[in-house]
């Protein structure tokens, strides 16, 4: 079991205070208004949790992965809609990638705006024809003197409206040398305020406080300093960002599920049926015990995955072991959390099915995570690949 440092516990206390006092009371309103209020974003910035993995030299808090997980856990307990969790996690995970592979010029330009909450820093790899299979994407990037020209489209992307309206952009991947497949892809930062970007919006099922959409990319010119890492090495680079996000998602799902179980426990202890509390029915207390056990296991595995990322950063880890444990942590994260929350909805009867009930919002939010940042099925492929060897992978 992971032991947290004194600083991590203090950080937990601060984020918990912020999430419970500022976010929880207005969480369901975020879905009604389809946005995270400006004062919440400002508060997150003042707390130092936006793009928190960026180096302090660029305005970040320089958090490691486990500490970023602590922040994610407390946000997930405070925000039943998951909106601020998504707003946080993409900037933490993809900020990590920009911090590691971005140019000095890009980091100086983007991070101060992202950490202050003025800009949104997102991730846009999915296209209408492919998501987790990034090589299946059609977007291209071509060198044009000292610049690059991007063409294509991205779809089902979080935070499109935020970046288009307030500024910022998304870390993106495209084919630079299509004939080389995965070995010919380049990762770069694409500002969504650039000429040639045409956004569209999608009405998502959950996490409604943050927008979801897509954008057409028509001859968008980006400077050379927006390229992350080496050209044509993007396929490998992008997976580090994915893995960071996946491990955070495991912790978020566990925390959202455990918070919902807490709501459920409070309910079944008070609510009486046939003259006794609901909690006394074996149907309920057995299910509670099973869900709690699964979610605690999930949380611990999530933190182990984050620790693997940290160890790798410290030169003590192993790339493939990290991929495996991260995939293991995310594989059932959404499913287990959804199952638990679904039961809590059931325990609460008609109230559970109403928009007033925070758990229904949590269910809709958590449901997205078996798709976002890599599907459940691909997580299985990764684990099996590490167990059986590359020659027996199902995708080759």
């Amino acid at each position, binding site marked *: 079991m992971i032991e947290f440092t*004194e*600083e991590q*516990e*203090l*950080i937990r*206390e*601060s984020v918990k*205070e*912020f999430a419970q006092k500022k976010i929880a009371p207005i969480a369901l309103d975020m879905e009604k208004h389809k946005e995270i209020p400006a004062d919440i974003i400002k508060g997150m910035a*003042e*707390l*130092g*949790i936006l793009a*928190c993995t960026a180096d*302090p030299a660029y305005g970040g*808090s*320089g*958090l490691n992965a486990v500490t970023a997980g602590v*922040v994610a856990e407390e946000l997930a307990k405070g925000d039943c809609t998951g909106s601020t969790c998504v707003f946080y996690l993409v900037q933490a995970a993809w900020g990590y990638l920009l911090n590691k592979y971005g140019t000095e010029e890009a980091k100086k330009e983007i991070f101060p705006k992202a950490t202050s909450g003025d800009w949104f820093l997102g991730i846009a790899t999915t296209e209408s024809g492919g998501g987790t299979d990034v090589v299946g994407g059609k977007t291209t990037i071509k060198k044009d003197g000292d610049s690059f020209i991007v063409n294509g489209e991205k779809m089902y992307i979080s935070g499109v409206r935020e970046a288009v309206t307030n500024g910022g952009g998304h870390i993106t991947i495209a084919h630079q040398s299509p004939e080389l497949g995965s070995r010919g892809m380049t990762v770069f930062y694409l500002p969504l305020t650039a000429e040639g970007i045409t956004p569209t919006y999608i009405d998502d099922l959950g996490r409604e406080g943050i927008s979801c959409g897509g954008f057409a990319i028509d001859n968008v010119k980006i400077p050379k300093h927006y390229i992350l890492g080496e050209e044509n090495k993007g396929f490998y680079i992008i997976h580090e960002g994915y893995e960071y996000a996946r491990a955070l998602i495991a912790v978020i799902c566990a925390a959202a599920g455990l918070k919902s179980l807490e709501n459920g426990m409070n309910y079944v202890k008070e609510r009486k049926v046939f003259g006794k509390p609901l909690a006394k029915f074996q149907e309920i207390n057995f299910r509670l015990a099973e869900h709690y056990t699964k979610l605690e296991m999930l949380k611990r595995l999530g933190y182990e995955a984050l620790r693997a990322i940290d160890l790798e950063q410290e030169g003590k880890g192993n790339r493939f072991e990290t991929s495996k444990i991260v995939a293991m942590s995310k594989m059932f994260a959404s499913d287990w959390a959804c199952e638990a929350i679904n039961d809590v909805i059931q325990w609460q009867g008609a109230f559970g099915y109403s928009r007033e009930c925070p758990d229904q919002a949590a269910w809709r939010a958590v449901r997205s995570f078996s798709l976002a940042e890599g599907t459940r099925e691909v997580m299985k492929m990764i684990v099996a690949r590490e167990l059986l060897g590359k020659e027996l992978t199902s995708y080759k």
Partner: protein
Amino acid sequence: MRYIVCVKQVPESNDLKFDPDENKVLKIGVSTIINPFDQFALEQAIKIKNEGDEIIAISIGDAETKSTLMRCLALGADKGILLDDEDFKDSDTFATSNILATAITKIGNYSIIFCGNSSIDTGSSQVGPELASILKIPQVTYVESVENVENGKVKVKAQTDEGYRIIESELPLVIAAIPPSSFQPNIPPLPKILAARKKPFDIWKTEDIEGDQSKFGSNGSVIKIIKLYKPPKREQGIVFTDEPNTAVEKLMELLSKDKVI
């Protein structure tokens, strides 16, 4: 100027658990926070702090109490002192005040000693006044705001039953602070939490403060707790959710039936 802020770590939950054999509030299994009155007192010290001034946060406790002092450092205190010794265990408010007064005397050269007016766990409101008495310095209690510190004097706004009093006092003194209902405690931001570990932090025992053991812990305590128990839980009241006119009618009917009116 040197400001010393006395802080206490208290259980977070309103649902306190007691050890009936020892007549103690149990800390195990309950998350802890800084006493909110003490955080308010610290924020008052930070408000009046000028360049060159120093704020020292001090607390009696054990290794777990360090986190409360680290929070004070993240909020803006310059130094933390944890008073952690077996001698200090089982102190009542008088022994607590003696420990704090001895440590504060050891620190020396202080202008204002800040305390929360009360703590949310035991709530005796005694430590501030006792500290002033032991140190033979003035005290002002129920202070809602420190207005200014000028020319060796401090001006404070203190609550009374009728309203407020503006009180001026010579330094040094003890201020027991009470937050207004509108008080929203600051939340320490992450970069300041990470920077807090670089600030000075001392752990002192009896010998470090050159204290008299007989005045500390159970030896120095004058209060004996006979029994510690929870008051009986109040039954949930009746809530009328009808339209106002109907609700008033129903309320009147019930009050009349119960012979309240």
